């Protein structure tokens, strides 16, 4: 029976969720050969992690620098302690900018690349070829991407935190917004190690979302080049929405 209107939209949403979880169920099975899985895992670590290092580094340094300059600009009130800019830069980077903003940047870089790669494999029948050979394509193609993403992206986030805080230091040094000594004191003041744990949990969850959602859209691409492009766009849009939603959920859960 055909479904119309609001019901059709709901049906489509539930169908997509069903297909997504079905993909995950098929993905998380024992790989056919561990040796091949590890080879693909390290290839993905390189593609997802090492190839993103430069953009993460540049963004983090500039983000840290901008946060410091803006903090210095806004904290001109003499009642605010002198080290506040350092604290603000450190906590902003640790709590939000490194895990969330860098993950969103990675959605654009890594997510679209995963979706295009799998989409192209789908429309050029490479995924069918795998299936005909008796290979489980979801396990073979998607599992190494998800595992590599969840493994390497938290490392990128830690690097981003360091570089962001260092960016603030560079800004204090080069612009004279505050004195470097005041900044150094600020970033050490009242440090909460739990923030690192919070950021790492967030980045692992975001890594899972961005790799799995992008793989889902790429894997289910149909048609030709146009559809591959559309699947890549969908991957970026849905991953971004999911990350923003889970950012709220995790913040509420972990910081309450």
């Amino acid at each position: 029976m055909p479904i119309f209107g609001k019901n059709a939209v709901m049906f489509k949403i539930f169908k997509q969720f069903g297909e997504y979880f079905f993909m995950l169920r098929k993905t998380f099975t024992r790989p056919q050969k561990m040796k091949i899985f590890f080879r693909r895992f390290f290839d993905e670590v390189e593609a997802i992690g090492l190839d993103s290092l430069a953009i993460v580094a540049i963004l983090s340094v500039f983000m840290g620098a901008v946060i410091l300059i803006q903090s210095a600009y806004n904290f001109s009130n003499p009642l605010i302690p002198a080290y506040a800019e350092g604290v603000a830069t450190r906590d902003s980077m640790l709590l939000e900018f490194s895990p969330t903003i860098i993950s969103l940047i990675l959605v654009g870089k890594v997510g679209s690349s995963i979706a295009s790669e799998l989409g192209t494999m789908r429309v050029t029948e490479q995924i069918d070829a795998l299936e005909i050979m008796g290979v489980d394509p979801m396990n073979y193609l998607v599992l190494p991407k998800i595992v590599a993403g969840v493994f390497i992206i938290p490392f990128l986030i830690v690097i981003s935190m360091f570089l962001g805080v260092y960016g603030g230091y560079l800004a204090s040094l080069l612009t004279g917004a505050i004195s470097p000594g005041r900044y150094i004191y600020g970033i050490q003041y009242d440090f909460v190690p739990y923030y690192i744990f919070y950021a790492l949990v967030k980045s692992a969850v975001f890594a899972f979302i961005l790799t799995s959602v992008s793989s889902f859209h790429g894997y289910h691409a149909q048609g030709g080049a146009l559809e591959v492009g559309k699947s890549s766009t969908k991957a970026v849009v849905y991953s971004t929405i999911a990350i923003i939603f889970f950012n709220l959920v995790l913040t509420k859960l972990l910081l309450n």
Partner: protein
Amino acid sequence: MIEVANISKKFGDRQVLSEVSMYLETGKVNMVIGQSGAGKSVFLKCLVGLLQTDLGEIHYDRRNFTEMNYQQKKELRQEIGMLFQGAALFDSLTVEQNVVFPLELFAKMSKSERLDRANFCLQRVNLINANNLYPDEISGGMKKRVAIARAIAMNPKYLFCDEPNSGLDPQTSIVIDNLIKEITQEFNMTTVVISHDMNSVMEISDNIFFIYSGQKWWEGNKQDLLTTDNKELCDFVYASSFMKEFKKSQNR
């Protein structure tokens, strides 16, 4: 041998295959012909399990493929080689790695044995000195040959070819056709070729099946094809002026 019994397939309200039955012999090139959109590719995808049939059964040497579970199908597929229309080579792997790929996953061989087998298959399709090239560095004909080498690497019992000549020049088409024919006889495989290229049909087919509007309309061999008075088949076979002339010369 593959027996196809009354398979049907529907997409929404559109009946694409309707009660198609065939007996595909071992050691022969079984050619499935028909117009574009007649249901040939859907038929092939149903045969290898890329699409689920709505009705009917498919038996691979008396093993009921339609009743098999996912794991059993996966095991049977290791006996299948397939040549896709666009070759479907893995872009990130070299020619040699493409051929080694199924061996690495399924064959209990040492690395040197795998390489020997891959080189044997590549030599069998007359591809030498191309081992380290990537798919985007070789021609369409070479891609098809690599795909054939990959398809026969596991020594399959069944070979499926989806329009093996599409996008190839006539000379290369003949090379690929002959290769399919030779390999079928050499390895005693059950080969199914989907095509609408009449040159191929006349060149290599042993058994011919004509699909029209999702139904098996006609079956026979090359001689039967030349003498048939089936209107739909004649319209298809003699659509080109070359084939019309050919028929005229045959009648004279």
